[in-house]
């Protein structure tokens, strides 16, 4: 528990990282350093996308599974990972 907490703190403190969000199985952000409305918005939207991506990967080969989905946009990079029903989201600006 503490290890994960530390890792998340390190990620948040890392250069260029705008924010992290941990979303639980019901779609509610349980830990974030962004404001609540943004977090909720990200959680809701990315949940659907991740489910769709996961479904695509597994449809091709059911023994395969999605680990990370990386969305590189003009302004920053969004990284989403589904795990155990939870969702971990990190937004980083890599070119700072």
């Amino acid at each position: 528990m503490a290890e994960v907490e530390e890792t998340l703190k390190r990620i948040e403190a890392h250069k260029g990282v705008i924010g992290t969000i941990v979303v639980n199985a019901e779609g509610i952000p349980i830990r974030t350093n962004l404001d609540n409305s943004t977090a909720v918005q990200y959680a809701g939207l990315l949940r659907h996308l991740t489910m769709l991506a996961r479904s695509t990967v597994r449809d091709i080969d059911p023994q395969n599974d999605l680990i990370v989905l990386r969305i590189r946009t003009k302004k920053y990079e969004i990284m989403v990972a589904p795990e155990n029903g939870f969702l971990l989201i990190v937004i980083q600006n890599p070119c700072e």
Partner: protein
Amino acid sequence: MLQDEEEGVDTGDGWDEWSHGKALTKPADQLELTEAELKEEITRILTANNPHAPQNIVRYSFKERSYKPTSVVDQMAVHFVLEGSLLHQDSDEARRLRAKEGLPEGTEPDEEKPETPATPVEDGGEVEEAGEEDRPDSVASKTDKKEPKLTNQFNFSERASQTLNNPLRVGRICNNTLFSLQWEIYDVYVEELQKQEKNKEKQKAIPSKKDNEKSKKKMMLMETQGDDFTKVGKASKIFERMVNQNTFDDIAQDFKYFEDASDEFRDQEGTLLPLWKFQYDKAKRLSVTALCWNNKYQDLFAVGMGSYDFSKQGRGMLVFYSLKNSAFPEYIYPTNSGVLCLHIHEQHSHLIAVGFYDGCVAVYNLKEEGLEPVYKSTAKTGKHTDPVWQVRWQNDDMDNNHNFYSVSSDGRVVSWTLVKVSQEIILVLYTDILLASILILVVQRLTFHKQIDYLFLVGTEEGKIHKCSKTYSSQFLETYNAHSMAVDAVKWNPFHPKVFISCSSDWTVKIWDHTINTPMFTFDLNAAVGDVSWSPYSSTVFAAVTTDGTVHVFDLNINKYEAICQQSVVAKKKTKLTHIEFNPIYPIIIVGDDRGYVTSLKLSPNLRKKPKAKKGQELPKGPEVEIAKMEKLLSLLREPEQNAV
């Protein structure tokens, strides 16, 4: 029949006779019968049979292929047919006829109209009434004219009463939630399989049911603790690496793809490209005392932290880094005393042997949780009395136990074995290899031969190197007067079985053939040499680090007298480089210094040269080539010696 007719005719004639008088006339063709025959009584049977119906109708039967008489013959005699024209008054046709008749009636009142004014007024009313009577009829007939629609009495419904029914589509109803995807099916199957396995296990483990229940209760408690982000543990690790990769993207790209193009112009020299820099906050005061790459996971390396300074002894640290994450170590083990040496087991890369400044040796297991070593030597089990300078894993012994050697300045070379004693594995001191009684050795370095298992070299603080054998524990096989100061490193060549290299604080690096007492090559590096290491890809390439912060890379195949690369890799001039190691597969080296930093550098192509193939010849590969290369060099050196001798 004929007689009937006859009689009938008779009676007929009889009537005719009445009208015309009684005159018996015999027709010409009348049968003449005797009186007896005339009196004969003949019975007449009245049947309903048709006398005209044929009695011998024959039909051809294809089944029996012959003509067969039909048994039943139609006996109906039609006497009179008249087609009737009667209609039921309520039937449709009748109504239609009436309507038609009504029309001419309707026109008639019109014709009568002009006549009515002609008739006297009294009649006019009657006629008008009649006309009126006719008119309603005509109106009715007119409305009747809009004939009632012919409808199917079984299957008709008014259009106005119909609702819009879309035709049933034969085909899939596309609704995302109803899609049965391949993976959903797969998941269900996997669940079923697991359930079946659980059932099997339950059947087997019936006596331990109570324990299961207890453990189940515990499990329940854990799960109801609520949102736990240990569940994203794995993902967070991956993310840390990804975030680092993004930040140090250019370094990662360089590591993978950059090849210094200017090497072509630089004749034979090469350069070192600095890549990641590894440092750990809590280890800032410590210096790097040992480096070791992991053979299995070639991006993982171990760093031992401690201090070489006699006066500054304190705690130490064992830290593991991965190239994938340069910001934070993968594993951290704080230790009580400074780490002086470490070695990762070549086959079981989760076992690490560590030697400490206080003379202890320990074995860490990366697979185990916890920060303590799995096995540690204590005063009872025979730890060294002086700092342990080198540890080295050996191949498993005959009982398949892991074992390693340690060397310390108390003069002992000790072999430790991990022995299974009553279900536990403990560290057992096996043999003291060299007894200090022979010589007061202050042994510092130890290296084992790769192929010849029993042969090893020890370097001492006095500057001598001794060749020893595991089997002859009381005597040295050979002694080399190598250096004037302490030997800092002794290493066998990974390819050539006879060659080893040594370096010392007397500023020199020497290469030896173990059969010859004098060095083959000597290099003066203008500063105390901290460490030297052979490269894993070539038998003639090696690198050395000095206390002035420079890395020297030599390739004997290219230049026998000078380094092909001399580069300062430290930020501050006062930092001393303490250790250097080549990565087993990637073209990078890691260099540790006395400030606790580990820097990774990429070797430029010139430093990794393979011998050029002559045109048309295939380039031979394999360790034999390397050995041959070295042998060629050595033979060149030997020949002048022989000539001189």
